[in-house]
């Protein structure tokens, strides 16, 4: 990795270590102070053009930020992802673009109905928006014929096992639909986000493995450190080697389809095993490892499905394979 990226990585790492305590964030949310911090560091508006107060960073830098932050606070990484990978491309070059200034400075909290649970029609939305992550937003993009903006409203929280620093739930609103004049679709932005998603995955994997590797050399069982047991050492080493391969693919921007597929294939297994290594302790939140397993499962189930496998197949076969 070149120097500038290494510098960035170290900066983000140092910042996260000092400021992002996911245990507190999971219970107390991403408080104003944290938002101000990540905004002033330029992480919040990482990809947003500088004319809107963003950092206008390149793809690789953005991915490094997501990866390093999600090692410490997956919730904060997800918040950055929602703004930069989902919201931004939808309002880009439209009259809504100006909202980016407030978003990247942290004054406005935005969200996107990326689970696509709500069928929107007409000019007004009066009712309940279901299953919105980062639900206490004041600007939410929903999808009908095209994307539209609605105002936030009263959140009816639901338990969501991942990214608990963000509110999740249904929102009661009464709002005009402000149509966004863009050809960009939800499908497009998700496909364009493969590297960003993989970067969050890499962060989760790395965070979990760091914990497990450390624990395996400290914790003793039957009077020897866990790492002296072959199955533990072999499994963790194999997983570290896969993690490093994923990092290489992402650093060199080899192929976003391959990266997504590979990261999703190792994600849950790795975070699960990292928990396992901690034995009974791993099952308790205080040890800071079970969260990676929860977040990993959420990433796997939300951002990787049949349609992504079809995209991968189309990519590999060189044409949309005619599925029956």
């Amino acid at each position, binding site marked *: 990795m070149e120097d500038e990226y290494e510098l960035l990585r170290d900066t983000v790492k140092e910042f996260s270590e000092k400021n992002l305590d996911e245990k507190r964030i999971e219970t107390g949310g991403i408080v104003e102070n944290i938002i101000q911090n990540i905004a002033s560091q330029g992480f919040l508006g990482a990809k947003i053009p500088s004319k809107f107060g963003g950092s206008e960073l390149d793809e690789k830098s953005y991915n490094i930020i997501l990866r390093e932050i999600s090692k410490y606070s997956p919730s904060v990484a997800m918040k950055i992802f929602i703004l930069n990978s989902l919201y931004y491309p939808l309002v880009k070059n439209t009259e809504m673009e100006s909202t980016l200034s407030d978003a990247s400075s942290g004054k406005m909290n935005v969200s996107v109905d990326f689970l696509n649970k709500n069928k929107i029609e007409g000019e007004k939305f009066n009712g309940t928006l279901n299953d919105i992550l980062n639900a206490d937003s004041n600007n939410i993009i929903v999808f009908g014929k095209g994307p539209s903006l609605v105002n936030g409203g009263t959140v009816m929280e639901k338990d*969501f096992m991942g990214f608990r620093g963000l509110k999740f739930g249904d929102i009661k609103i009464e709002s005009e639909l402000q149509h966004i004049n863009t050809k960009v679709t939800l499908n497009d932005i998700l496909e364009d986000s493969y590297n960003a998603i993989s970067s969050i995955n890499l962060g989760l994997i790395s965070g979990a493995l760091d914990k497990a590797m450390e624990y395996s050399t400290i914790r003793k069982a039957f009077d020897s450190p866990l790492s002296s047991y072959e199955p533990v050492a072999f499994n963790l080493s194999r997983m570290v080697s896969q993690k490093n391969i994923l990092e290489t693919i992402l650093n060199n921007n080899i192929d976003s389809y391959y990266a997504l597929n590979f990261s999703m294939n190792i994600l849950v297994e790795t975070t699960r095993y990292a928990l396992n290594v901690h*034995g009974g302790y791993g099952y308790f939140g205080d040890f800071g490892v079970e969260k990676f397993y929860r977040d990993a499962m959420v990433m796997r189930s939300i951002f990787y499905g049949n349609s992504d496998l079809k995209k991968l197949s189309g990519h590999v076969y060189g044409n949309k394979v005619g599925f029956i």
Partner: protein
Amino acid sequence: MFDELSDYRKKIREFALREFTEETSERYDRNEEFPFEIAKKSLSLGMVDMENPAKILIAIEEMCRVDAGLGISATLPYFGGEVLFLFGNDKQKKILNDVYHGKVMLSLGITEPSGGSDVAGLKTFAKKSGNKYILNGSKMFISNGAIADYMVVLARTSEEEKRHHGLSTFLVNTKSRGFKATKLENKLGVRATNTAEIEFNDVELSEDDLIGEEGKGFYYIMTFFNISRIYVAGQALGISEGAFDKIKGYVKTNNITDEATMFEVADVSTRIEAARQLTYNAASYLFKYDPKPELTSMAKAYAGETAVYSSEKAMEITGKSPDESIQRIFRNAKIMEIWEGTSEVEKLVISRQILKGD
């Protein structure tokens, strides 16, 4: 043995479906609170028949299928009871009847903070002093720990003998002076169950509190594990089935027919069927007093992995519909690979047994 109990199974399932509503399950899970009312109801009504092991297994399975947090809580008051039943004196055994009817709650204290799966390495010490024992030490991750009336405790009683020698079991009244339980919070799953860290500070025990003979504790506990593992297999089987219920419901409701999902359905259901056959087969030997430890360990290890696998598949297949009940199943499942001996320990038991034969 199990086919004949289909009426009992039906009764349990109906009870669980009626009592473990989504709203109730959610509440106890969120509040991380033990469901005393439900546990009492299931036992005091004689709903769960604690005197027939095949019935216990079925009750565990069917209740965990609906909700593992509540289901385990409702079937755990007996936790450790087998040690009393098999090795206890008459006075100790008398407690069991109250346990069967939900009036007394038991617990079992084996694992220690530094110990994990290394039972033989435990440090809690019961020092003989006249006709008394003075208990000191601590236990970790003890189910029912903060709510039990009595706790079966494994402690060292000899300084000379090492490892699994010189261990003994005691029945400790949790109201004893010097007994301290601290509820452990923020568990990933089975949050309705109670888990605690226990400290013994000069807890005074009489000779009557000794279970069985001094120095045989390790043997008693290993005998216990050979029984309890099958109940953990039952929990895991129930969780797997509950996960599959969700998959089936989702696939049918949304009329999903794509082949990739059909293959997943086949794989998950096949693994669950294998876990079921392993569990029932091992249980049928055990309940006929002809235990096959390797079969029990296989059942436990396989069913535990199947619970995790099935719950992950339920999350994947339902994908962008993050139903709270499915997430709860996923969070509950993981403990199945950890408690009553991690999968790793099971594997060592299995290989050791298997390689013994010819």
